[in-house]
Every structure is written in structure tokens, then in C-alpha cells.
């Protein structure tokens, strides 16, 4: 009876619940004993030339150790050369390196201009934290304003270019892909029903509860850097490149990390400045940003505008779909075309649509740079196609569930290749839809909706569906590492390249070892995030960890088992073929003869002083495609426009479930963020590029009071591409929840003539839509 698939509570929790986690700002290492505190001076203006920086007053402030600007950075090498494909003045394509360099390159401290509010201009080092803000206020920077390019429309108009020498503000683009390659819309020629819609997928702020934090110490030719990161090893390489150091001279440690959601991949610009400051001054430096800094200094997510066109037959068959994406990438194209290329790749979602065309342009604007945020390009694809399907259903008068069922890829078509270039491994989309409809009581919900419409109730009911498929471990070829050691005392240590920041890897990796070897979880220590102990690894993003890092752990365990068999045979003077590992009791024995049993301690001890070790790098994985359906029930007050989510029912199928407890937790968290995008969150800039939602008072993170408990249904359709049969669950909940919730609110108002409302569906926006539709949902 394997422990896999059973409800195991986390090993991480006793420490987190009693002493609290050790996040970067909690670290009390001796190397940091005499650390100074870093406070940044940041641009208050979206677009300007920097004509002078006067640090003299700041230098005289209490506790100031140094005030550093770009003028002090002469100890750094020149920036990397421009990319070979000539990305200087032509837009980078899909193959462009990420981030784009050359003319689009991003400096560390601002050089001669600033391009977004929050861009770092100087760094102040003080003896203690409280003195930092006082001193930073005294740094005087002269700005000569330039015309702000505050949104994608302005960027495309091109009157002001952010980067001298470039031809436009388009940093990357892909022309029409998919098999509708004519790009002239002719794919819709055979369609009886065609709907076109402009859709916004609004800019979001990731808001992990722990902001960015870095502590760095330079001593004896070695740089030690603690980073709140999802990737210690990648951070090390970024640091090496940016600071001109040999990677061997750098140690990166990821302690406990208070959430990442894709925005803590590697180490970012501000973190590099902190590390440089430590090397430059020879003093250890600590930095933990405030939330206000985080709202504009940490990368944002989403920020796409879509034009969709969907066409098909009157009886609900979708024949053609077109998606054009304009990706606002903020002030610097840190991700090149990566995000919208994933959006285009997943354009058709779980539907068998014969004719597809997809395209994108990436534009720079004077706003915070965009990067990955839970889903990273795939929520956008799902949100677009799920709105398109509902619009198509409304046009045909057919039930949205029925339209989905007609068009979902049937179970006998896998692996399924889409016209936009993805090959889905396994899936059972129709069953997922049917399970959710049954679990939610769809017919009764529609009946209740009809009753309320009949009565003309103020509180109307909306039911929203979203069927989705998404790509996880898109970079599976990059692999993941694991090293397993069984010690002479019979305990084990796992060194994993994965990098948990809440996901519970320590628990699951221990479960995998117990399942394979019979060593109890309590005797398995898992270590991650220290490049001295784990020099090679990729880390955690793209929902890759279980299917790559976990599989690597299992493979290492199998390797250890194979080695142990040889050692046991020697110790027990038996032939290998006669030996068995009893994983229930965790002992080796001659088959069927428990009296001969030997413990792991005895076997490992017999192997030698180092015990048994196996190291793997699992690179044979491939991207996998979890899928599901979400159904949201929303109640909308048609007099005020306020929408409330009252139920949320899901299937999120990510293959074999190794830990049901943790999988549910990932789904819950994903759903909450997805709902929040639909109803509440938006990172707003005014026409001058000033952030309007710059604190948690104005940026509406969802709370427990706005959510119901969720109804999660079980579904496991294993993948064939890895031995565990697992796909990634981390982002799926977010991807399904956003469009289901958006569709639910719009559905509540369908009888009033409302067809589309852009997110977030705030009360004001919903009320305005009701009014515009011309029905009396408004005033008494």
C-alpha cells in the first residue's frame, strides 16, 4: 500500500506554525552581522531624461554609509552584445533571446533616462532600516520630462519611442501563425455565424505576501546572496553575468520564500543592484522592499489586448478562430515574445477547431515591466477563447455547455495536434465538462435563473463555464536534478533542484522516497535552494516541479535501490535475484524469508562511509497538458452592479495525484487568484504613466469575505510522458477560474441584452454595461 495518493499532512508546517518561516529578512547569518540597509531612490515620473543627481545632502544624513548611482558602477563590465538576429531596430521574433538586449537593453541603476515610475535611480546604504527612508528623501534628482507612453495604443501610434535607434515601440512580433496563414480572414468564409470582439486581459500585480528581498555579503573573493527566489541556480548565473564574476565565486541561497507566482524567477534588476552594492562597498547589504515599492518595482502580469473572431455553423460547430494579441510589456522587454507566443500556442484551448490564425505584437510602454504571473500567457488564451465560445453560443442561441460539448476534442483523438502547433498528450475533456455540470446541478441552476428572470428579481443568477487545457513544463527539455543519499544510520537526504515557495515539495519528495524505498518520511530530509549544495538545477515555475523534479527524485531512488541490491547481495551472501525490498517495513530480505531482513542502515553502512548515493538529471520529460472545466455561479445585484461569487465547481485534471491534499491547495489558491482577476484586480495607470493603484488599499486583493468554499471534483487522466503519469497543477486553477467567473457575471445579465463586459467586473463597470444595454436594470 503505497503512501502516494494518500492524504499526508505537510512536514514543513510545525516549524512554520510555531517559529514562523525564515524569509530573507529573517535570516540571521554571521556573514550579515554588520550589514547595512539598502533603500532605493526611485523615479517618481514615468518618462524623463535624468539630467543630474545630487547626493550631497543625503551623504550628510544620519547613519548614511554610501549613496550610489550609475556613476559608481564603473567596476562593472560592458553590457552584453546585441543579439545576432539584429534585434536592434527590427522587432524580435519568437526566437529572440529573453530579455531582448542591444538597443532594448535594461541597465541596473538608471543611466540617462527613466522609463517607468519606480525605476531605480540610486541606492542609499544606512546603518539601520529607519534611517534609510530619511536619507533617500534627501537625494535630489533632476528630471526633464519626456512625453509619456502610458498604454499600448500610444505605443503603437509611435509618436514617442522609448528606445533611441529603434524603428518603433514594437519589441517583438509574430505574423499570422496557425493554418489560417493567409491572415486575411478568409478562414471565416464558410461560416454562417461570425462574431468579433475586442477583449482586455488587464494588467495585474502578483502581490506575493513577501515582497522582493535580497541580502548579500562579499568576503574573501566570494559573494553570498540570499534571495527570495524561485530559482537559486538561475539566480547565480544571472549574478555571474551581471557582475562579471565566475559562478564558482557566488553562492545563492533561497531560504523560505513567501510566494512567487512567477514574479520571483531568478533575481531581478533591483536585486542585482543590491548584490553589486555589497561587492562594491565590501559591506554586507540587506534589502526588503516595502509594499509600495513592490507594487511598481516587481514585475506585473497579463496586460494583453485581444481581438478575437470566431465563426461556425448555426448548430454550434466552431469552424474558425482568430486571435490577435497586443502584449504591453512595460518599459523593458524582459520576456521578449515569450508570453504571447504561449498565448498563441494555446489559442484554441480544448476545442477541435479546424482553421486558426494567431498573431502578436509586443510593445513597450512607460510602465512597470511585465513578466510571468501564475499562468504566464495561458490564462490569456483561455480567457479569450472562453469569451469567444460564449459569444458564439449567444449568437446561435445554444446553451454554452452544449456548444462546448460539441467542440471539445474527443477522447479518442490523443495525442492531439492543434493548428497552432501544440500537441496535447492526454485528455478527457467531455467527461470533465459533464462531471462539473452534474456536480453543480446545472439544470437546476438554469431553472433557478429562469425563475428569477421571470420574476424580475433584483438579484439575478449567472452561470459561467470555462473549459480549458494548458501547457505545463513547457521547458521540460531543461530537466531537473535530484541527488539522493542514504546514510549509514538509515536516514536519507534529498538534494533537489526544485525550489518550493509554498508548494510542499519537501513533503512530496519524502513521500516518493518512502514509496520507493520504504524509508519513513520522518527519516527523509529534503534540501533545496543552496547552490553550494545543489550547483545544478532549474527551480520552480511553469508547474514543472513534480513532473520533472519529483520524477528525478523517484529515478534517483530507483538508482539507489539498484545499487543497494548489489550491496545487499554481498552483505547477505545471496544472489541479487533472490533478494527483495519490503517497502512496508523498509528492509531488504531473501524473498519470502523475513528472518533474513537487513535494514537500510546496515546496507548503507556496508556500502561504505559515504552510504549510497544516486544523482539524476531528468531531461526526458516533455510538456504536459492538464485540463478541466470550471463552473462559476454569480449573483448580480442589477441595481448596483455588484457581483458576488456564490459557488465555484471545478475539475482540474493534472494526471495522477500524488498528494491529494497539496493538489487541492494548489487548486484553491489558483481559483482565488483567477476569481480576483475577473472581479476585482487591475493595475491602473493614468495618462501620464502614474500608477493609480499603488497600495493594497486601492489594488483590490481578494479576501476570505469575497469567496465561497470551493467544490473540487476529482479526475485523474495520467500522462504517458513520465513514469509517474503526472502533469502540473500549480496554474490550472487560475486559468479556469477567471473566464468562468467573467462568463457567469455576463450570463446573469444576458436577458438584459449585455453581451460582453471587460474585466475586472467591478460594480461600476457592471452597472454601466446594464445601462448601456438599455434595459431597466438600474434606477428605481
Amino acid at each position: 500500500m503505497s503512501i502516494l495518493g494518500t492524504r499526508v499532512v505537510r512536514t514543513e508546517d510545525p516549524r512554520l506554525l510555531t517559529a514562523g518561516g525564515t524569509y530573507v529578512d529573517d535570516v540571521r547569518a554571521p556573514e550579515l552581522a554588520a550589514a547595512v540597509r539598502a533603500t532605493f531612490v526611485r523615479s517618481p515620473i514615468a518618462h524623463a531624461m535624468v539630467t543630474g543627481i545630487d547626493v550631497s545632502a543625503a551623504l550628510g544624513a544620519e547613519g548614511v554609509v554610501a549613496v550610489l548611482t550609475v556613476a559608481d558602477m564603473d567596476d562593472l563590465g560592458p553590457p552584453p552584445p546585441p543579439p545576432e538576429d539584429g534585434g536592434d531596430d527590427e522587432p524580435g521574433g519568437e526566437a529572440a533571446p529573453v530579455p531582448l538586449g542591444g538597443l532594448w537593453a535594461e541597465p541596473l541603476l538608471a543611466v540617462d533616462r527613466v522609463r517607468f515610475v519606480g525605476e531605480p535611480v540610486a541606492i542609499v546604504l544606512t546603518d539601520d532600516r529607519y534611517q534609510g527612508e530619511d536619507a533617500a528623501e534627501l537625494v535630489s534628482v533632476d528630471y526633464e520630462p519626456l512625453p509619456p507612453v502610458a498604454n499600448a495604443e500610444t505605443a503603437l501610434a509611435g509618436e514617442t519611442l522609448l528606445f533611441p535607434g529603434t524603428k518603433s515601440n514594437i519589441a517583438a512580433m509574430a505574423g499570422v501563425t496557425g493554418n489560417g496563414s493567409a491572415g486575411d480572414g478568409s478562414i471565416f468564409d464558410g461560416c454562417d455565424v461570425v462574431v468579433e470582439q475586442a477583449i482586455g486581459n488587464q494588467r495585474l500585480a502578483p502581490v506575493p505576501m513577501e515582497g522582493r528581498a535580497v541580502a548579500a555579503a562579499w568576503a574573501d573573493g566570494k559573494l553570498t546572496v540570499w534571495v527570495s527566489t524561485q530559482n537559486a541556480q538561475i539566480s547565480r548565473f544571472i549574478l555571474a553575468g551581471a557582475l562579471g564574476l565566475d559562478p564558482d565565486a557566488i553562492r545563492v541561497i533561497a531560504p523560505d520564500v513567501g510566494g512567487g507566482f512567477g514574479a520571483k524567477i531568478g533575481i531581478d534588476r533591483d536585486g542585482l543592484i543590491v548584490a553589486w552594492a555589497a561587492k562594491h562597498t565590501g559591506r554586507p547589504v540587506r534589502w526588503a522592499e516595502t509594499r509600495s515599492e513592490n507594487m511598481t518595482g516587481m514585475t506585473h502580469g497579463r496586460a494583453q489586448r485581444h481581438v478575437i473572431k470566431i465563426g461556425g455553423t448555426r448548430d454550434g460547430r466552431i469552424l474558425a478562430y482568430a486571435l490577435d494579441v497586443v502584449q504591453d510589456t512595460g518599459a523593458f522587454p524582459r520576456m521578449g515574445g515569450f508570453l504571447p507566443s504561449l498565448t498563441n500556442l494555446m489559442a484554441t484551448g480544448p476545442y477541435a477547431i479546424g482553421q486558426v490564425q494567431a498573431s502578436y505584437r509586443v510593445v513597450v510602454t512607460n510602465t512597470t515591466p511585465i513578466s510571468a504571473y501564475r499562468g504566464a500567457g495561458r490564462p490569456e488564451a483561455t480567457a479569450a477563447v472562453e469569451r469567444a465560445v460564449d459569444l458564439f453560443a449567444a449568437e446561435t442561441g445554444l446553451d454554452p455547455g452544449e456548444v462546448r460539448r460539441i467542440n471539445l476534442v474527443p477522447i479518442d483523438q490523443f495525442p492531439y495536434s492543434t493548428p497552432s502547433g501544440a500537441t496535447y498528450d492526454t485528455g478527457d475533456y467531455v467527461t470533465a465538462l459533464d462531471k462539473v455540470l452534474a456536480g453543480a446541478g446545472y439544470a437546476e441552476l438554469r431553472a433557478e435563473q429562469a425563475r428569477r428572470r421571470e420574476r424580475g428579481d433584483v438579484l439575478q443568477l449567472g452561470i459561467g463555464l470555462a473549459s480549458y487545457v494548458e501547457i505545463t513544463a513547457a521547458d521540460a527539455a531543461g530537466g531537473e536534478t535530484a541527488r539522493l543519499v542514504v546514510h549509514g544510520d538509515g536516514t536519507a537526504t534529498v538534494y533537489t533542484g526544485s525550489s518550493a515557495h509554498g508548494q510542499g515539495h519537501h513533503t512530496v519528495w519524502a513521500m516518493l522516497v518512502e514509496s520507493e524505498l520504504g524509508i519513513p518520511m520522518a527519516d527523509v530530509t529534503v534540501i533545496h535552494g543552496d547552490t553550494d549544495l545543489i550547483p545544478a538545477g532549474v527551480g520552480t515555475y511553469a508547474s514543472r516541479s513534480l513532473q520533472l523534479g519529483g520524477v528525478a527524485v523517484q529515478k534517483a531512488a530507483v538508482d539507489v535501490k539498484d545499487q543497494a541490491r548489489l550491496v545487499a547481495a554481498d552483505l547477505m551472501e545471496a544472489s541479487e535475484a533472490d533478494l527483495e525490498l519490503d517497502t512496508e517495513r523498509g528492509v531488504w530480505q531473501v524473498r519470502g524469508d523475513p528472518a533474513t531482513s537487513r535494514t537500510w542502515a546496515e546496507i548503507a553502512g556496508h556500502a561504505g562511509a559515504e552510504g549510497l548515493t544516486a544523482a539524476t538529471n531528468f531531461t526526458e520529460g516533455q510538456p504536459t497538458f492538464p485540463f478541466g472545466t470550471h463552473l462559476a455561479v454569480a449573483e448580480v445585484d442589477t441595481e448596483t452592479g455588484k457581483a458576488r461569487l456564490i459557488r465555484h465547481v471545478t475539475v482540474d485534471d493534472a494526471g495522477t495525484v500524488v498528494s491529494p491534499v497539496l493538489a487541492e491547495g494548489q487548486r484553491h489558491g489558483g481559483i482565488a487568484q483567477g476569481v480576483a482577476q475577473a472581479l476585482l484586480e487591475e493595475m491602473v495607470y493614468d495618462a501620464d504613466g502614474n500608477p493609480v493603484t499603488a497600495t493594497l488599499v486601492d489594488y483590490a486583493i481578494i479576501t476570505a469575505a469575497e469567496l465561497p468554499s470551493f467544490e473540487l471534483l476529482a479526475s485523474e487522466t495520467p500522462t504517458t510522458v513520465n513514469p509517474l503519469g503526472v502533469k502540473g497543477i500549480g496554474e490550472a486553477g487560475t486559468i479556469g477560474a477567471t473566464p468562468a467567473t467573467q462568463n457567469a457575471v455576463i450570463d446573469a445579465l444576458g436577458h438584459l441584452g449585455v453581451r460582453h463586459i471587460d474585466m475586472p467586473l467591478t460594480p461600476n463597470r457592471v452597472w454601466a454595461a446594464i445601462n448601456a444595454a438599455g434595459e431597466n436594470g438600474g434606477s428605481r
Partner: protein
Amino acid sequence: MIPAPFTYRRAGSVDEALGLAAEGGEDAKFLAGGHSLLPLMKLRLAVPETLIDIGRLGELRYVRSGDGHIAVGALSTHSDLATSGLLARELPLLAHAAGQVGDPQVRHCGTIGGSLAHADSAADLPAVALALDAVLVARGPSGTREIAAGDFFQGLFESALQPGELLTEIRVPRPQAPARWAFQKFTKRAIDWAIVGVAVQGSNVALVNMGQTPVRASAVEQALAAGAAPGDAAAHAADQTSPPEDLNADRPYREHLARVLVARALEESAARP
């Protein structure tokens, strides 16, 4: 995140508080619960040079029955008011509204005096004070005076308090019909400031966030006095108001919400047994 430097002084009595305020002059501020002031100071939107902590003046923390009125000490916390049995019986509008301020942690610290003195038109208690015809008692260097709620709120973050004056008590005339109350607080999330709010006590109707100060919906009150049905009276809710425009609401939407919420509040108040 960190307030600018200041000098902290703690007052052991109201007299001492007034003395310290006189010493500190214009750059001195009273610190009650700190939940209006400290957030501003942390963002450096307020930079007083002296903070006079009055938070331990227990003599200003009470809820009492008086002659024809209920007397609430200015340092009563929102939590005190929300859980007061006396208020639940005699002034349920105030008890209920106090229980809606912020979240439990804020309610454990924030005080009614602090909230009223802060005079934020988006806060709940200023409008409640208007609806209750409250009288605000202030003590200053030149003695004690009573200020009607209608005169107290003079502008956004501007009250009638003079420098060095301390709010000591909120005196509310006993309502004729305590049960004729309603409080409609319309927010995006439960934790948010009201986009628009309505406080009703008897025939008094006051509005949250429909102007630079809390305001009485006089046109509604006049219509009711003239015998209009509540639904018709509510149609005047936005008359003579200048609602702000912000992220959450444009002007037409706020005006619309005022009408909807006043109608609902009047209905709720009338339906109470």
C-alpha cells in the same frame, strides 16, 4: 513605510494632554488609536513633529446613559461600541456602524473620537454622527465647548477642532424611535471604504462619500416630511451633492448608488419591528 522622526509624549490626563498640545503647537497631533493617523505617517503624508499619546486616558472611554442622551467617551474603540449592550438597545445605528469599520484588528484599536476628528468623508462614523444629530464635546485651552455634528465637519480632513483642542465626548440625543435605523454601506470588498454609504435614524438621512464632508440628504428629508413615499423621496438622494470621482465610481454611478441605497435604507428602517 517608516514615519518621519517625531517626539513621543504620553499624557496621563486630559489636562496634561492639553498642556502638551499647547507646548507642541501646530506640529503636534494627538494619537488615540492611531489607525487614521499612523497609516498617513507611514506614507509620510502626515509629518507631525510631536505625537501626544492619549490612548491610555481611560476616563474618556465609556458608554453611559445621560439625561435625554447617550454619552460616548471619545476614546471608546469601535469594538467597544459594537459590543456595547447599552448601544445595542438604545443606539443600534451606532453599534452596528462601528461594527462595520475596517476589520477586527482595526476595531480593537481605532476610536470614535479619532475617526470623527480625522473628518474623512469616506469614513462611516462621521455620517452616523450627522444622522444622530450628535453633539461633539471638545476641550481646549480656553475651556469646553459643544459643537453640533452639522457644524463639525468642515471639509475633507478638516474639522471644527482648533489646534490644541481635544474631542472628549460624543453626546447623542435619545432617538424617538431607536429601532428606526438603517445603515447601508456599499463596498467592492467587505474591507473597503464605502463607495457610498447611507445612515438613517428616524427621518434623518446622512450620506457617506457623497461630498467633501458627510452630508445630510436634505432633499430626501424634506420630501419625507412633505409626505412622500420612501421610494419617491429616495429619488432626491443625490440632489445638491458633489460626489467625488475615483477608481471605484464616476459621478453618475455615485449619484445612482445614493438613490438606490437611500431607498433600501428607508425600507429597511421601516421594516424593523
